[in-house]
């Protein structure tokens, strides 16, 4: 605890997680070509079909250009100046916690990842992905008793090739967009999770991502399959050290929810956002999509986005099964020079499907914050219902808050509603809080948390607390 406090003090409390870990990493040379793709596949000892899949994706990627439709000002990215693979050299083939590299463990301690024994109490099973390689998955045995598979995707490729082959790329095909093609070509690791028929996962599953090595990109891949009648709540956290350069993060998350199953996916994204002048920070180009494949399936995305220099992310749901239900709850906060273009897509295909979107944008400093969402009701989607609410809060007059909702309805029985409001923190509110003895910063933190409450309350307990703190920290220096 003391050490952590010290680190925070050293950093001037600007970016709490901005430390690097002094671990030897094994990296391959910068740049990308077919050989690099083959090398990654080979290093991971992958079967031929996966190597072929990667190469197909790579060749498709070559034909694509970066999307420019988002309300983002993206500097030129030199894809040949990125290291596509970096693994901690101390290969973690471990039997117990004690064998984990102490330096690495300290990193996770700093991150507050419950990799320790004591965390058994909080009931979180963690797969930590550092740079690109999965370090250690806790609670494997407890989960195994229920038949739940929770491991790194590399292990899954090795141990459960049928499952992986069946579902990998089934929700997000590699050709979906520029970044999914890139990810499919070079993904190095990530998490895999399978919940068998009728099983309720007894604990929250969690992945923690961290970019550590300089000049690397992170391209993890997450695949979750919830078989019929199962339930899982999945958490994802992200941090990266403070660096002057921009680092690329292009992840793909795929979720398959079968009949009567339910998946809750929560993200607290706190990649390094860059400094006050807008220098450095992560470029976060993520494709997340889930499919409610069977009838009565339920999928819920909750995200708290406070980090990254640029965020481009639209966790989406395909409501294919009849009576399926999807939700998207988002708090996106930008400060200083951060830019975010985030939202969701709800694609209604099955009958009697329902979706709900609650998006809360907060912009401060000179940041630009956009909500972009699509609600599509296909021809056969009888009785589809969607309700979207998108609110923006502006702090200061140098920032921007934008809302771009798209509604495309092809079935007359659908009811689709969208509402949006824009507001600011009023002088009266601040005065009232000041009068009761709160500092302006505390008051802003309080008001912002109140504003975001509807979304924060959807997060699992341990995450909700962290998210609240993050919101307050990220706002520092934006008022007064």
């Amino acid at each position: 605890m003391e050490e952590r406090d010290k680190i925070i003090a050293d950093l001037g409390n600007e970016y709490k997680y901005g430390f690097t870990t002094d671990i030897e990493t094994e990296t391959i040379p910068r740049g990308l070509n077919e050989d690099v793709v083959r090398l990654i596949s080979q290093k991971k000892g992958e079967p031929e079909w996966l190597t072929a899949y990667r190469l197909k994706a790579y060749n498709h990627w070559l034909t694509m250009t970066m999307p420019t439709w988002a309300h983002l000002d993206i500097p030129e990215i030199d894809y040949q100046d990125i290291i596509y693979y970096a693994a901690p050299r101390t290969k973690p083939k471990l039997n117990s916690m004690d064998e984990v590299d102490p330096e690495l463990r300290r990193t996770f301690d700093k991150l507050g990842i419950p990799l320790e024994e004591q965390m058994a109490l909080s009931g979180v099973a963690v797969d930590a992905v550092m740079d690109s390689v999965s370090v250690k998955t806790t609670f494997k045995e407890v989960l195994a008793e229920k038949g739940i598979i929770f491991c790194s995707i590399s292990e899954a490729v090795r141990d459960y090739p049928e499952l992986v082959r069946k579902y990998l790329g089934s929700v997000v095909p590699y050709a979906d967009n520029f970044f999914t093609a890139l990810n499919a070509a070079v993904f190095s690791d990530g998490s895999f999770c399978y919940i068998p028929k009728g099983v309720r996962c007894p604990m929250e599953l969690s992945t923690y991502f961290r970019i550590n090595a300089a000049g690397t990109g992170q391209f993890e891949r997450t695949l979750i399959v919830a078989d019929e009648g199962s339930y899982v709540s999945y958490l994802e956290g992200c941090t990266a050290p403070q660096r002057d350069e921009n680092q690329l993060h292009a992840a793909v998350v795929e979720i398959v929810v079968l009949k009567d199953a339910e998946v809750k996916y929560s993200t607290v994204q706190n990649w390094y956002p860059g400094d006050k002048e807008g220098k450095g920070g992560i470029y976060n180009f993520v494709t997340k999509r889930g499919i409610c494949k069977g009838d009565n399936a339920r999928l819920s995305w909750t995200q708290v986005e406070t980090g990254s220099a640029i965020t481009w992310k639209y966790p989406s749901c395909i409501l294919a099964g009849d009576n399926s239900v999807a939700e998207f709850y988002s708090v996106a906060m930008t400060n200083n020079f951060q830019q975010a273009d985030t939202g969701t897509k709800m694609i209604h295909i099955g009958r009697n499907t329902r979706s709900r979107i609650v998006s809360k944008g907060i912009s401060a400093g000179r940041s630009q914050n956009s909500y972009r969402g699509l609600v599509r009701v296909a021809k056969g989607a009888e009785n589809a219902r969607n309700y979207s609410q998108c609110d923006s809060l502006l702090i200061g007059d140098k920032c921007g808050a934008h809302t771009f909702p798209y509604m495309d309805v092809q079935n007359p029985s659908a009811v689709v509603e969208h509402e949006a409001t824009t507001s600011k923190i009023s002088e009266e509110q601040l005065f009232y809080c000041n009068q009761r003895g709160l500092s302006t910063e505390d008051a802003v933190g309080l008001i912002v948390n109140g504003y975001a409450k509807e979304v924060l309350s959807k997060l699992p307990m341990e995450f909700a607390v962290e998210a609240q703190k993050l919101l307050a920290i990220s706002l520092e220096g934006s008022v007064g």
Partner: protein
Amino acid sequence: MPAKQNLLDNYLSNIDIIGEGLPVWFNARRSDAAASLNLHGLPTAKQEQYLHSNIERLVEGEWEQYFVTRRHPDPTPLLPEADAYRVELRNGRAANEALKVSAEGAIYGSLCTAACSAEYGAIVERWLDSAADMSDATTALTRMFVQDGAFIYLPAGVEMQSPIVIDSAYHTDGESEMCFAQALVVAEESARGEVIVTHRSEGAGRIVVGFTREAIVGKAADIKITELYDLQQNCSIVNNNYITQTGKSHCATMCCKTGDGYVRAAYNTALTEPEAVSDVWALYLCSGEEHCDINMAARHLAPDCRSYSLVKGVASGTAMGSFAGMVYVAQDAQRTDAQQQSRNLLLSDTARIFTQPQLEIYADDVKCTHGATVGQLDDEAIYYMRQRGLSEQQARRLQIEGFAYDVVQHCGCPNMCRYISELTAKKLEKM
């Protein structure tokens, strides 16, 4: 040949005929517009404002020479009422070349005549193209070919008692024809008046209309604009409207698409000085295989302005209705109050509604809301009406009429309001 090249070639080979009798400055801007179109190209579905309008397909093909004045039979008079001043456009050209002065002191008539006149030439030169955005391809296209149109000038303090009607009719007997027209409305300080614009078509041939209207609303002026699209199925229109409002001005626009022809209409309002107020109401009714695409932008460029817009759409058959809205608030446009609502009714399994209300906000002390709904008729209301003895069909009709009436009632001129209501009812019969 690609449609763009075809148009540019046509322009270049007819440049002398097109610009004949018009001032040098007028034709110089024409060539600027051509350059802009050449640079930007025709819009594709990749451009968000044209996502649902295939302009390329609209303008491709062989077109009659449309630069030579030809007389067309006069269509039946629009409104059998006397209390209006009229500018009659036939395929884009004023039927009567003379400028007229109304009893209240407004000047109205042919745009071409006004541009060439000694008294008003300077006003046209000053304001024409001042609000329009030439980077918009269809605006540039119209500007490239335009030869005439309507000019309405309300000098400072003029208060109109009767509306000025721009009756724009399109006619072709068999050949495919393109027509272009531009309208300029200049309302000086504290002027008040109402402008009614009607688009209607007759004849058997295919017609594509490019229309651009600019309205310059001076300080504390109060202008009402009503626009009606009553086109036959073989007539398509691309209509770009630009309104520039200065301090404390008020401009209310109501537009209504009751005809069967394709309509792509853009209403862009720029609020450039404090305390300007803009209201826009729009209604589109699409049945059969029709398509209607409404774009609406309110640009708040100064503090303390207010804008309100309500766009209502009804689609049946295999029709498609699309709406793209934008509220833009510049950084120093503090205390903006902006509201944008899109309400849609989808009446059949094969119809489609696309709506996209957007906000782009760079100021923090603002009150901006937008909302969009797509739905169907209210079952409760239908039950209620049936309980009072109405048939289900009557109840449905009444409800749709009520839905439409919310927009139609904002027409300032009672006769026109009645006329639009009748057209609306007639259209609803088909839905």
